[in-house]
């Protein structure tokens, strides 16, 4: 495989970054994902973190170096991530499981497979146009589909953030899977959170991602989205990959990666953990101490009432 990849996540104007992004590749398979923890819910950041971690670990376990069935892998990994979030909530005695959107894409044998739940999107850009993008699992998207709302009015609509599918939470996610999509030389796959696609249109997205190498294009696109959103800028995250034909005799860009020489069991992983990466399991801050004590006492009281 030969491709160029770039990822970046920003906090925007929010207090914390609840987005998690990752990519990971073996000699023959590539995984990319974006998870956007749902802020209106408890511990959204944790849900995004768990989902990203779970799926990246599943990939490393199974892509040795190929996934036997990429579509099945995505289906199992997303279901597993959902349950990992529920289990964690149970262990922490959270009254409600936290939630996260998720979009994940696997490339193997020159074809892409993706799956998503929620409103984090995947775009496929080819020849300067958006040829495919994932459909949001949001109320506004449903209204557009039913002709109740014009697409141009959607981004101001109050239902924009109302999602009917996500990982975690009380309902089983409705995961949508793409068909197997063969890639052509120069195709760009871009996965992003709504902090990116919300403020900018498709035109801006195409312009930034195709005009310059991704390592410049993605930061410029995020700059643009952040500027347009102004003081309301949400977390902004994107993983973008440009596919190169391995046999293409054209000059290889200095930034492109060829996995041809990778060892069979080798993985390269980049998981942006931002705020959660600073402390290993051993660190316990003041908030966590307070929270642990509160949780224990809540449990004690809960059981006392039954007595």
């Amino acid at each position: 495989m030969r491709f160029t990849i770039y990822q970046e996540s920003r906090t925007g104007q929010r207090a914390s970054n609840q987005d998690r992004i990752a990519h990971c590749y073996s000699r023959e398979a590539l995984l990319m994902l974006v998870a956007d923890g749902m802020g209106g819910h408890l511990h959204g950041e944790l849900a995004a973190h768990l989902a990203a971690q779970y799926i990246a670990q599943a990939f490393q376990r199974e892509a040795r170096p190929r996934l036997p069935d990429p579509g099945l892998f995505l289906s199992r990994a997303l279901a597993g991530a959902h349950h990992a979030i529920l289990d964690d909530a149970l262990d922490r005695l959270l009254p409600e499981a936290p939630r996260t959107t998720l979009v994940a894409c696997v490339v193997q044998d020159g074809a892409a497979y993706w799956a998503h739940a929620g409103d984090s999107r995947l775009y496929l850009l080819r020849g300067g146009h958006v040829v495919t993008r994932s459909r949001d699992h949001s109320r506004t998207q449903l209204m557009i589909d039913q002709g109740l709302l014009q697409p141009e009015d959607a981004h101001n609509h109050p239902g924009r953030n109302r999602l009917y599918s996500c990982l975690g939470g009380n309902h089983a996610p409705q995961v949508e899977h793409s068909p197997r999509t063969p890639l052509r030389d120069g195709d760009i796959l871009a996965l992003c959170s709504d902090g990116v696609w919300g403020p900018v249109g498709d035109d801006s997205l195409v312009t930034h991602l195709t005009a310059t190498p991704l390592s410049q294009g993605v930061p410029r696109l995020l700059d643009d989205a952040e500027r347009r959103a102004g003081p309301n800028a949400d977390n902004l995250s994107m993983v973008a990959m440009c596919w190169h034909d391995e046999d293409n005799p054209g000059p290889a860009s200095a930034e492109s990666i060829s996995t041809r020489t990778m060892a069979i069991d080798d993985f390269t992983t980049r998981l942006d953990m931002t705020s959660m990466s600073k402390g290993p399991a051993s660190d316990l801050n003041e908030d966590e101490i307070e929270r642990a004590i509160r949780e224990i006492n809540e449990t004690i009281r809960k059981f006392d009432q039954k007595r």
Partner: protein
Amino acid sequence: MPSQANCALPQGFQLDQYRIERQLSLGGFSIVYLAFDAHDTPVAIKEYLPNSLALRKDGETEPQVSDEHRLAFRYGMKCFFEEGRALAKLMHPNVVRVLNFFRANGTVYMVMQFERGRTLHDYIQKHRGELKEMLIRAVFARLLNGLREVHAHKLLHLDIKPSNIYLRNDGTPVLLDFGAARQTLASDQPVLKPMYTPGYAAPEQYEKDAQLGPWTDIYSVGAALYASVTGSAPPRADERAVTDVLQPVARTHAGRYDAQLLELIDWCLQLDPLARPQSVYALQKALIHRHAGADRPENWFSDLGSRLRSFIGRT
């Protein structure tokens, strides 16, 4: 260099809403106090105070934690919270009840129901083993009710031993000290490995990455039963795994106890986890049903409380 012992809080010390009466026990990881709450109800308070990481000098209240130990101290605190979390979920007459959890003096405290009585360890010491068979069966059958509750919550105790089994004055047992308790599914790698008690810990507890499960607690129950019969703990399981010098009690104590009870003890103490009873329920059933056809008064179990009282006495 032996680590300096921590000083206990003095008598009369007002700790949150509790008044310290005296120190009950001192461990490497904590101090347990007898204290009274605002209504003068006695409680047991366990103070997180790992000897190797924190030092409280005489006359001081706040322990000193050096910068190099701060991270480990916090990590240990996390383990202390795990114990709290584990116990908070359990409400069973044979499992110690947690009443409150709070922060003070730069550390954390767990308040538990105070039970009057003595530990099975003290009881065994006093009688040099050779506990009456009826007492053994009755105490352990009830204790296993508590352990079943523990396992039903996907927890393992991992430190069952006579000094963690408390006999109330009415003879009913209470399982104490969940400091080593662990969520069976937890993936945390312990940095501070819990200290297991030689003789009572199962062989798999000495191994790295071994599968711990109900069978691990069952080994410890077997070891506690062994001590009740012989007066001392069985040889260390890690040493047994090299050269097994354990004599089956079915042989050494034949005639003094019912053969079925002795065989049960030997069964629990098998080095191979799969060779032991696989569930607490199986073990409990064997403890209660001595053997088919044994005569037992109709009201044997309903009358257990008073029988136990007569065995143990009020003081």
